[in-house]
């Protein structure tokens, strides 16, 4: 037998442009950020190539005049707030989206297309404008305040703006379409005969929802949760405009460090922490779905 002559597999080169783009737009920029995060802050902004772990220490500690480290939770609070707000945003989006997506999925095809179009409609308007509109709604003499005062429910209320509630509202508003769409898609894929089968086998509405509809639409919910949670972690506009610059999230904290505070290494360090958080979340999700799939295959 003659061994087949081995020819180099040139097909691999076909993917070269894709790899090149990944390298230029993903790997190198992240590399730069990592380098910056371990550099020394320049006297007039920017940075100098002098290795230090100071930016990461700065996340947790204040350095006193004599070099002693004093625990400072201010950045940790921002990280915690970001995680909590993102998680709450994701949960609220999930709770609100499921009935909406289900309702849309039940409509006639023409209505369905219209409703899906309406869900995606906000994306056609600039994000800044959309978030800004909440300032008008929630602000002093805004629609909400005027209505409440007009009804005599409140006399003199604190502004609804500039706080966790306003930021949460903005986040939910911004990202809810990203939850509705994948859930809608998974409900659409659900065979109506399965719901009938559940009813036929003595399952009432609640049983059918719990044992048939929810488990079978879980992939859509997971996809939606990732699509909402990840951008929420990095949100800049909502905390900047609705948090009033006082209540910060990681997104605008990073922006502040690169901008006004002129502390690039610290900004880079926070960005790396944020990225690590997202990666941990995604790896966790990936492992979970791999495990359920594995269980299903093993069964």
């Amino acid at each position, binding site marked *: 037998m003659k061994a087949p002559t081995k020819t180099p597999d040139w097909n691999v080169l076909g993917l070269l442009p894709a790899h090149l783009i990944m390298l230029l737009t993903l790997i190198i920029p992240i590399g730069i950020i990592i380098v910056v995060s371990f550099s020394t802050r320049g006297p007039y902004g920017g940075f100098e190539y002098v290795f230090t772990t100071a930016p990461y220490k700065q996340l947790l500690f204040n350095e006193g005049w004599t070099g002693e480290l004093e625990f400072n939770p201010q950045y940790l609070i921002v990280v915690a707030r970001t995680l909590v707000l993102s998680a709450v945003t994701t949960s609220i989006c999930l709770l609100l989206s499921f009935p909406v997506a289900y309702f849309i999925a039940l409509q006639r095809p023409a209505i369905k297309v219209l409703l899906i179009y309406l869900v995606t409609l906000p994306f056609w308007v600039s994000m800044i404008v959309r978030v800004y509109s909440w300032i008008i709604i929630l602000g002093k003499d805004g629609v909400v305040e005027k209505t409440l005062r007009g009804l005599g429910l409140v006399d003199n209320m604190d502004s609804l703006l500039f706080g966790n509630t306003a930021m949460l509202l903005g986040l939910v508003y911004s990202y809810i379409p990203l939850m509705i769409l994948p859930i809608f898609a998974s409900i659409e894929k659900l*065979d109506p*005969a*399965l719901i*009938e*089968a*559940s*009813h*036929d*086998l*003595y*399952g*009432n509405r609640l*049983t059918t929802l719990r*044992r*048939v509809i929810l*488990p*079978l639409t879980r992939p859509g919910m997971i996809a939606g949760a990732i699509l909402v949670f990840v951008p929420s972690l990095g949100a800049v506009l909502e905390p900047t405009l609705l948090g009033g610059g006082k209540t910060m999230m990681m997104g605008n904290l990073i922006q502040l460090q690169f901008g006004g505070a002129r502390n690039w290494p610290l900004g880079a360090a926070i960005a790396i922490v944020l990225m690590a958080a997202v990666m941990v979340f995604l790896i966790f999700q990936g492992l979970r779905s791999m495990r359920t799939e594995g269980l*299903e295959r093993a*069964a």
Partner: protein
Amino acid sequence: MNDEAGHGAPRKAVEIKGVSKVFGTYQALKPVSFDIYDNEFFTLLGPSGCGKTTLLRMIAGFEQPTAGQIFLHGSDIQGLPPHRRRVNTVFQSYALFPHMSVEQNIGFGLENLGWSKDRRDTRVADMLRLVHMEAFAGRKPQQLSGGQRQRVALARALAPEPEVLLLDEPLSALDLKLRQAMRDELRILQRKTGITFVFVTHDQEEALDMSDRICVLGDGEIQQLGTPAAIYEEPSNRFVADFIGETNFLDADVITVDGEQATVKTQLGMTLTASHKKAVAGQKAFISIRPEKISLPAQDNPIAVDGTIMSTNYLGGYTYYLIEAGGTKLRISKRNSVSRGQMFEIGQSVKVGFAAESVRILGA
């Protein structure tokens, strides 16, 4: 009222009373009334769009009748949601829950009925044995073949011991060979469990093979209801004669009608007397004669005509001939009972014959 039936008389499992269904402006089902008896294999047969599936879905509770009532063992089930009706359905697509194992699928209905774990496990094991699926208890539906899914769907629907089992074209997704095997199995299952089966199909052969009684539906109304033999041998109208099996239609003029019998002069020229339905003396009618009831060549048949072989189709067990006779075409099937038996050539002149008893006269 069940006790009305008394001893011996079959108990009514389902009573359909004047049930009709309108979707928007489309009348899917005109008012129909009939009874389905206990322990019966009852088939709703008809072409697509005849209303058979609508009727089944109304019994299951997925659709509400526009008018009329449905009784299940004597009690009106009008307005009861599907999960409150003691009927179960075998769906056309099986509709097995993909995220549950075979066992979990079969136990689903029992859980909802509040059966204890022990009782459930026993019943699920019994059902698995009944459909010969013991070895697959832990599998997911997507790991099963079409025939296996079919069995699981059956087991799942039979497990809660429904008063009536509804089957919505359950064999249509299977290949031919499996379909034949499942027919026998379904029949055996029905006898073993003693549960009333209401079977929907558009396949007349399936219906004839399995049913105790068949209800032929067409254009949203009942065309005929009876045993397979009655429906095949004594069709009550052209639709039934045409839809069930194959037949030859010949024009005829009705001469006299005498009770069950009518005398007609057919387009082949001969006069014959046979059983009839709705024939009126002096009016047009047609006669239906099945391909296998025409002898080729004519033996000592009282009715015989000369003809010419137009085409032959050899199908192994049978050969089909198309014969031109008396200005019309007759389709004849002849069993190949002897290897290399008598074959006929295209263009050959033959004499074909049949008995008057084999003919059905149908009023136009």
